[in-house]
């Protein structure tokens, strides 16, 4: 592999040769991915990464997420760190300690290499901060008009300590519902950049890895029933998933739900409901009522859970409806999102 000019990361663009299995692809992998992700597994240049498991692990966990966010760069993050956090969090939500990541890139012909480099560096930093190396990967290039800059699919594996057994099916009426902080920041930060909506706000995406918080929570309350990160579909989707899996209802209290003023204001402007807006660094936890205050205290003591709150409880309801007690004391349903979250004028 001598005899090749370094890649022009300043002005270059992805072209089809970067995905063809030839020299250009090998060079891109070496000069970009291996260089920044920087670990022995990748350097071994095998088709997959082999690794030992820590002694005493109970079960393993695997989770995957494809990331297709637009715009690619947004206040508080970019698709790179998001793709690390998104999957690390899915592993964490099973109670697992994430250990390794795989990353599959689908690049669109013409994508600026400078942007790709920026994204890879951001991924590398997020992986490093999370302590979860990216140990194997794949790169494909699609023709212009058949992709959207870059899509990143990350997959994580981790270990679940013996005795930890999170599942929404374990939720029982009476269990308490907690969220780890303010809702809707990510979705609003993204929407603020959409060309036809453009508004300005200081709100930043909350994208963050939550496995540290989860570890602290499980340490304090091993009996947590279930955890989930309210990404697409927001809190509403998670609560409906919980209700459906558990076969009981959910009741939340509007005034207990942490939503920033600017998020509420943006939602007013666009006709959206913060309960349906996506988050990338928040979790929803369910635990037995008697553990709720202790869990809340542990969460609040952690930087990722500073603004945690108890927002409601599971209730008996054969229909599996999610209800919300409004600030008025009335009750309404919080249904699954219908269709898409689109800005409304009426």
């Amino acid at each position, binding site marked *: 592999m001598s005899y090749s000019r370094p890649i022009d990361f300043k002005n270059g663009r992805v072209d089809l040769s970067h995905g063809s299995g030839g020299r250009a692809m090998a060079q891109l992998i070496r000069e970009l991915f291996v260089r920044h992700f920087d670990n022995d597994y990748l350097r071994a240049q095998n088709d997959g990464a082999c690794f030992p498991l820590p002694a005493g692990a109970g079960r393993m966990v695997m989770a995957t997420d494809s990331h297709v966010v637009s715009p690619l760069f947004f206040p508080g993050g970019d698709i790179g760190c998001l793709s690390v956090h998104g999957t690390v969090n899915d592993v964490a939500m099973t109670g697992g300690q994430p250990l390794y990541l795989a990353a599959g890139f689908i690049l669109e012909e013409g994508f600026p290499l400078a942007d790709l480099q920026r994204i890879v560096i951001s991924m590398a930093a997020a992986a490093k901060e999370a302590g979860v190396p990216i140990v194997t990967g794949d790169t494909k290039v699609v023709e212009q008009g058949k992709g959207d800059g870059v899509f990143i699919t990350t997959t994580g594996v981790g270990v679940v300590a013996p005795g930890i057994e999170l599942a929404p099916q374990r939720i029982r*009426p*009476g*269990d308490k519902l907690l969220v780890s902080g303010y809702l809707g920041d990510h979705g609003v930060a993204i929407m603020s950049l959409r060309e*036809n*909506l453009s508004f300005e706000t200081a709100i930043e995406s909350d994208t963050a890895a939550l496995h540290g918080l989860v570890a602290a929570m499980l340490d304090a309350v091993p009996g947590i029933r279930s955890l989930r990160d309210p990404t697409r579909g927001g809190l509403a989707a998670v609560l409906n998933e919980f209700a459906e899996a558990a076969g009981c*209802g959910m*009741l939340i209290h509007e*005034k207990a739900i942490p939503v920033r*003023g600017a998020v*509420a*204001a943006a939602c*007013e402007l*666009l006709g959206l409901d913060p309960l349906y807006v996506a988050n990338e660094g928040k979790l929803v936890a369910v635990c037995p*009522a008697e553990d709720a205050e202790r869990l809340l205290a542990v969460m609040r003591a952690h930087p990722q859970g500073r603004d945690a709150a108890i927002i409601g*409880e*599971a*209730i*008996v*309801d*054969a*229909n599996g*409806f999610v*209800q*919300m*007690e*409004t*600030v*008025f*004391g*009335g*009750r*309404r*349903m919080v*249904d699954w999102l*219908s*269709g898409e979250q*689109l*800005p*409304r*004028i*009426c």
Partner: protein
Amino acid sequence: MKYIDEFRNGNVARGLAAAIAAEVQPGRSYRLMEFCGGHTHAISRYGLLDLLPPAVQMIHGPGCPVCVLPIGRIDSAIDLAREQGVILCTYADTLRVPASGGLSLLRAKAQGADVRMVYSCDDALRIAQDNPAREVVFFAIGFETTTPMTAAIIKQAAALDLKNFSVFCNHVLTPAAMVHIMESEGDPAAVALDGFVGPAHVSTVIGSGPYEGFAQHYKKPVVISGFEPLDVLQSVLMLVRQINEGRALVENQFTRAVTREGNRKAQALVAEVFELREMFDWRGLGEVPLSALKIKEAFVAFDAETRYSIAYRQVPDAKACECAAILRGHKHPRDCKVFGTACTPDQPIGACMVSSEGACAAHYTYGRHKEASASEVKA
């Protein structure tokens, strides 16, 4: 949020609710139609029905311009995008409205039609300027609130002498629809409504004046009401009082944003660009005379209906659909056989299920739990 949060105070709401409960007269029922989806939304989202005494019944009116858009008009919009190959710009609200053949603008888009969501009609104009080689049509919908800006961009397009821009006008009028509801039974006395919660932002534009004839003629009290939950509660209280006292006036609860005259500048603009249509078909209501606007001859160059010879083809509402009865207060969504089964917000059949502010959609999304017989136990 100033001027918003104060009007959402739960404690005050309980005060207002108590006042209503205190003033409701025993043995009397108060059947109130909130004309607007904005009110329907506030009632559903804040659970206001739980705060009202059983004697007060809220009937959801046809006040959602998306719900009432007839199938034939959506079909024409889809045709523009698919057959004429135009860039069709639309507010997101219309994207999922069901059209003929299982289509919608969103599905047409998924099949390759160039349908673009805009937040403001300004954006449609900009898209036309950015794509001089393409024809761009703005699919204009809305009540009086949303009409002036359409007028503004038509004038702007004329000033810019834009050749590739036109508007498919579907603006409709509130008072005409209210009249139609009163006339739809043949005998206004047969209409089981005791009063109307009148439009908020529509009235900001047209003023409260236009409802005075209605209130007087049909002897039904009208209270122009803001869309915040306390506004709605106060308006209900004001209606209860009028009913108790046998009055039938137009009262204005939304004084902070509505005057008797409304926004004269906006009205003048609308009058310059638009004129009354003889007849317009409303989904759920059928043909309503003098209930919509069309583009005046002077701006015909920007009228997509003329430019593309759009012929309106009436498509009958689904047979099973009870919207017509629901919109008149005769039936409740739960009375419709297909409610929640064949007809859901994801795959709506009738007008009332189309937008989240339709009566059926609001009940499905926010109120369905009331139908469930499950006994709840709070932990």
